[in-house]
């Protein structure tokens, strides 16, 4: 049996290359869409937490609670209302990113040195200018780290969205499991791991470039004042 059903059959891969490529594209799309929507929702929640400080613990607890819902259950529960649609896949995926992203935004803003914001206020910048021109740019490195974690996690979770008929590479894996035919299973698994690694590496490069002010080393501490 393993002679005719090896882990990887290249002829099958070649024949099915269009399906495989389409699955990769769908996987990437779903991942990016999730992260973009997640960032938008997290942005709104963070804004609420900033505006009304007392809402902050509640938002923290709610996003953490969302994260604890088992994924298969979450996808499954939505099917009766939203069907086997992309929406059904996106709702849990976006929900799972929130705990990481909301915290990244708030932590990023929190770690801005108080003196910097104090100076911005003292010289006459308006609250909006201080947020957009000073605190947010300084929070970006922390937010990008959060995006990295959210993205890599989402690549993995997207495969599970196959159970609601979405999920890109997840569908190859599911197909392989159903038919006990290992090639699509192997291809789906390998490519989703590869995708996670590639995106992770992309973020590492981004993180290096995003804060040129902190990468540069002080020229000379000694010497003339």
């Amino acid at each position, binding site marked *: 049996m393993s002679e005719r059903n090896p882990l990887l059959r290249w002829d099958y891969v070649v024949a099915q290359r269009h399906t495989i490529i389409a699955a990769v594209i769908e996987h990437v799309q779903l991942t990016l869409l999730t992260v973009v929507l997640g960032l938008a929702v997290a942005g709104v929640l963070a804004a609420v937490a900033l505006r009304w400080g007392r809402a902050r613990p509640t938002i923290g607890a709610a996003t953490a609670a969302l994260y604890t819902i088992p994924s298969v259950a979450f996808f499954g529960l939505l099917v009766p209302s939203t069907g086997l649609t992309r929406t059904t896949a996106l709702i849990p995926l976006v929900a799972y990113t929130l705990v990481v992203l909301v915290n990244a935004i708030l932590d990023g803003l929190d770690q801005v*040195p108080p*003196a*910097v*914001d*104090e*100076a*911005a*206020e*003292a*010289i*006459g*910048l*308006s609250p909006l*200018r201080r947020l957009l021109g*000073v605190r947010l*740019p*300084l929070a970006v490195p922390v937010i990008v780290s959060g995006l990295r974690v959210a993205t890599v996690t989402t690549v993995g979770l997207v495969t599970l969205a196959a159970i609601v008929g979405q999920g890109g590479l997840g569908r190859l894996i599911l197909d392989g499991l159903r038919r006990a035919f290992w090639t699509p299973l192997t291809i789906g698994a390998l490519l989703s791991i590869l995708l996670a690694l590639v995106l992770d590496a992309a973020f590492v490069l981004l993180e290096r470039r995003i*804060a*040129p*002010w*902190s990468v*540069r*080393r*002080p*020229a*000379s*501490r*000694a*010497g*003339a*004042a």
Partner: protein
Amino acid sequence: MTDASRPAVQLLAVSKHFPDSVAPAVEHLTLAVPRGAVVALIGPSGCGKTTSLRLINRLIDPTSGHVEVDGRDTRQLDPIALRLGIGYVIQAVGLFPHRTIAQNIAVVPRALGWDRGRTRRRVSELAELVGLEQEQLGRFPDELSGGQQQRVGVARALAADPPILLMDEPFGAVDPVVRARLQQELLELQARVHKTIVLVTHDLDEALTVADRVALLDRGGRLAQYAEPDELLRAPAEEFVTEFLGPDRSLRRLALLTVDALQLRRGAAVAVGTSTHDARALLARDGGDWIGVLDDERFLGWVRGTALAGEGSVTEQGLEAPAALVGPRSTLRAAMDRIMTARTATAVVVDEGRFLGIVTLEDIRRALAERAG
């Protein structure tokens, strides 16, 4: 609006109680800052210096009393507009780490909507003014030394040419040598820009050197004394002031007063060519052992009375060079140091070679005593 006689900044019976503290941070503070003056706020840590400064540009509002800037109650002004019109150097410098030096300096002009060209010209002008290299303008704050960062902080505060400058321990984070230089440069800068400056410090020497008037605050923001530096040292208003100024008040005054503030005596001095007879007579009246020899207005040196025996005239030969020379802008402390280092009794005061007179330790002692009267 810019009535020269009206104070640039005025605090009128201002108190500030923070909700979560028992003692007031500032209590019934009344203080007028004259236009164009440098006023130092000084006092022990936690006495309300920073709070007083923050009350001026409405970073905080007073619990009672009111603040006037340019004769207008600040509560009637938009806080953002008020702050944009007042330069502020915060205690911790607080440069924007993600912005270059040029961008840091340009923040207020940009917020005021200046065009690029004008902003760029202003930035390079300020770099020059505060002593930064043009090539540093493209750097990030982390790449500069502490002293350079402080200069950037000052340049940022001066960017839109505000008439009033608030500085919270602007030189607190640098070593004493750099601090002394920055203080000197601030004085030179002030001579060019003529701002009204309120400067917070807890360094007494800094307050005495840079300020026209010193406001000494006691804990709880109570104003203990508000006076010119020499007056503060000469006549402390109360026990707390005396204690704060320390046991070496007279020495500090010596560092403040300059030689040209003394009534300079000509002493025993004769022109070259004077007869030894006349010189002896002069020395006898003066009661000293040495006589100065002048060529016109130039001080040539000293000659000992015993060398003036016999008939003839005073010549340039055999004169002893003056061991202690001081200029009219030297401090009395420097003059005293010169006299004692040279182990002599008299310093000769010359201004670009021109003889002005002599100073003795007794003159200095009398000057301190007279002014104390």
